[in-house]
């Protein structure tokens, strides 16, 4: 029996925009974005497993400015998704649902993601010059 007009649960367009909502969307977006990065990660590992020549080709690809910008974006996505994911796990355990706590944990997630990203990008910075 088809039931075409079943009620929908409230979704994005229904709510007044709030930053907690943006954080939730960013969690998904950063996850999808990292799935694309997985292809590059595996390409890098395959190149390393294929030998020095293939690795050199991959290294040239990864040293392209656009790819480096993408790698930096993946670093930010990684940390954001990790901290936001931990926030979700805490929710799944049943804690932190009240508005005040949810807003504060959201800010904490962004702060931690920014700090960890800056630290990681600083670590990555020293690899930019030499590619022996």
């Amino acid at each position, binding site marked *: *029996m088809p039931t075409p007009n079943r009620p929908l649960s409230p979704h994005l367009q229904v709510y007044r925009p709030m930053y907690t909502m943006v954080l939730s969307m960013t969690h*998904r977006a950063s*996850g*999808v974005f*990292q*799935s694309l990065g*997985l*292809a590059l*990660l*595996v390409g890098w*590992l*395959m190149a*390393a*497993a*294929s*030998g*020095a020549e*293939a*690795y*050199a080709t991959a*290294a040239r690809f990864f040293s392209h400015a656009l790819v480096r910008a993408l790698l930096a974006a993946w*670093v930010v996505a*990684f940390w954001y998704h*990790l901290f936001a*994911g*931990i926030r*979700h*796990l805490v929710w*799944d355990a049943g804690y932190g649902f009240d508005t005040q706590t949810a807003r504060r944990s959201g800010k904490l997630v962004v702060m931690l993601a920014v700090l960890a990203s800056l630290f*990681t990008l600083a*670590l*990555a910075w020293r*690899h930019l010059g*030499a*590619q*022996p």
Partner: protein
Amino acid sequence: MSRGSRIGDVLGHGSAREGVQHWWQLRTTSAALAVLGVWFVMAVLTLPDLGYASVTAWAARPFNAVLLLLFVAVTTWHSALGLQVVVEDYVPGKGVRLLVIVLLRFAHVLVGAAAVLAVLKLAIGGRA
């Protein structure tokens, strides 16, 4: 009078125990990746350099190889599960949705197989 739903009305229309498993696997893989992911990023970025010799020597060490294997396998699984949820939420039309999910699953199996093979070859395959 039959009290139950007809089987044709319910098959393929939602969770018949699989949904909970999917939900749990997404969370357990995320917990594992919180550790494995941080290990991978830090281990790679603290290498003396990212040249062929350094990277292959690093990946050949058994401890690194085991964690690397787990990292790529769990990442691939988490990615497949996570993208499926996004597709289920945003792709309209049951047929298209199923097609996209199956294609994504194929892509993930391909990527996962490649990743596992690469890590094993780096660990035990000797010189390329």
